[in-house]
């Protein structure tokens, strides 16, 4: 899996492509750990290019969400392909993740941080 990271107005945006499974899920968790260590706790995952996800990949996303919630941050997802959306619905995860149709919609939902 390939992970491209950029930042926009205090939100780290990770664009994922490829397969999200046990191995790539562990890699994703490592990237998120680095971000949270740097106090970045507003995270958006764009899943547009995710071609495969299994229960191990879902488990990694749940783990990341729990970690971010502990830190009082936010995790949003967007651009789920129809079959990925279906897997989220089957597993009931669509009820616990904040899922947006597009990345722009997700980013608009983040409150802008006031300058000090």
């Amino acid at each position, binding site marked *: 899996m390939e992970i491209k990271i950029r930042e926009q107005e205090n939100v780290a945006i990770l664009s994922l492509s490829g397969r999200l499974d046990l*191995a790539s899920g562990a890699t994703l968790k490592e990237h998120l750990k680095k971000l949270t260590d740097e106090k970045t706790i507003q995270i958006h995952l764009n899943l547009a290019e995710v071609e495969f996800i299994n229960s191990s990949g879902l488990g990694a996303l749940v783990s990341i969400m729990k970690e971010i919630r502990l830190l009082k941050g936010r995790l949003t997802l967007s651009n789920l392909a129809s079959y990925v959306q279906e897997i989220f619905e089957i597993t009931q995860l669509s009820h616990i993740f904040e899922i947006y149709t597009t990345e722009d919609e997700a980013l608009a939902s983040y409150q802008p941080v006031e300058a000090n």
Partner: protein
Amino acid sequence: MTDFRFSYPSRSEIANQVLDDLLRVLADYSIDEDLIRGLTLAVSEAFTNAAIHGNRERPDKNIQIILRVMESEIIADIIDHGKGGVEQVKSKEPSTSMDEGGRGVDLIRYYADSSCFTEAEDGGLKVSIVFNRTKQKTT
């Protein structure tokens, strides 16, 4: 009927190779894309369970996958050499939304037209997953 037989080491990270092998074999047949997605997902889940829970990632134990492609259906058998686990699978409750694991069997059951968990000849677990080809979408 055509049989394809694969043997893999008990390492969960091999799941990617399993997917590649399945996709390569299935590409030679006219199979609906949704069926391929469901099949590869279900086999991937069974393989990961076999590696982690069945063989406990022991290097001396392999996992066999037998794929039978027939005109009306596709059957995948995933066989480990662990200590069984049929009863655990049968009594497994669906995972709750905040669990980090435990969704594999739920996904197998959802996507397969039928699935069967039985004891293998040596006492391991054999997962048989059946996909019906006749319900393919017509285009």
